[in-house]
């Protein structure tokens, strides 16, 4: 696969390569051009989100909400409604993770459609990071909510089923990480490849239709990632709570 860089990555590699190599040197990786497209674009998306929320925070007002506040109130109510469907009334303490993962993945998916930018989520490392973060989060929340009785739910409904249930449950939990990773990665990667193929065949109009489909797919996949994260947290937390 060819290693072409977008303009931001070239700027980062020209000026900040030493900084990245010093961090990568901790795990023993050295490279001439250490910044990848997905790494730079992830930082850009995080920066954009933080700037948006900083502006939102400055303009919060109970009497005369502006358009930005109303938009994010819609997003907040949407996330809260979905979380209450999946988890129940204890959903409020997990909303920060769900909202963040939804907005981050949504922004990552959509920023690839702007010319001269690329989606971080079409790199499997990025989606694997999101999936591992979700995995760690729902296990951690399960331990926080249920204490040290949390691993007992892997043993199944009856104690003598445990030697059969524990491997099945372990594999199923690991398969959750795999499916979260591959679903998001395959959707974004395949969408981009299909657009590129049609760009190769017909130069003007047909790729636009596929980019429209890519917008739709990006929104749906971000929503599904958040929904599955909620379902996993609900399953981990709701056990004999």
């Amino acid at each position: 696969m060819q290693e072409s860089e977008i303009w931001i990555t070239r700027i980062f590699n020209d000026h900040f390569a030493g900084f990245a190599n010093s961090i990568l040197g901790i795990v023993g990786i050295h490279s001439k051009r250490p910044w990848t497209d997905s790494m730079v674009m992830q930082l850009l998306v995080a920066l954009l989100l933080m700037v948006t929320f900083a502006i939102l925070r400055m303009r919060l007002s109970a009497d005369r909400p502006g358009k930005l506040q109303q938009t994010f109130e819609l997003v907040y109510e949407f996330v809260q409604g979905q979380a209450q469907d999946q988890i129940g009334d204890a959903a409020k303490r997990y909303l920060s993770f769900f909202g963040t993962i939804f907005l981050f993945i949504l922004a990552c998916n959509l920023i690839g459609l702007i010319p001269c930018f690329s989606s971080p989520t079409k790199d499997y490392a990025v989606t694997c990071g999101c999936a591992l973060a979700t995995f760690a989060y729902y296990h951690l929340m399960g331990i926080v909510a249920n204490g040290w009785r949390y691993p007992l739910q892997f043993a199944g409904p009856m104690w003598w089923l445990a030697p059969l249930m524990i491997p099945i449950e372990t594999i199923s939990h690991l398969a959750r990480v795999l499916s979260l990773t591959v679903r998001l990665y395959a959707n974004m990667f395949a969408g981009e490849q299909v657009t590129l193929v049609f760009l190769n065949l017909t130069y003007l109009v047909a790729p636009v239709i596929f980019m429209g489909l890519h917008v739709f797919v990006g929104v749906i996949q971000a929503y599904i990632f958040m929904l599955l994260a909620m379902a996993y947290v609900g399953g981990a937390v709701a056990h004999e709570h």
Partner: protein
Amino acid sequence: MTKKMLLVVAIMLIAASALSAQTRDQPFAGGHWVAISAAFGMAIASGLCGLGQAKAVASAVEGIARNPGAAKAIQLAMLIGLAFIESLALYTLLIVFVFAK
């Protein structure tokens, strides 16, 4: 009856783990067969996922026809179901793109 089945399954699993421990010193020499098998795999995956999505959409449309008031909820459930089924076809497309140079 079930104890014998469990014994057979256990023996098969042990045999599988022993048989799979072969040396892999030759590189992946698929050649032209990769393209053919990728095409067939993708065709089968797309066809079956098309059938699955057709069933999902058919039940959703019938549900909306019976109960037009629940149209939004049914539409949301249909979209979620379609996205899950779509991902299954995309897993196969991923293999095509990873193995086809």
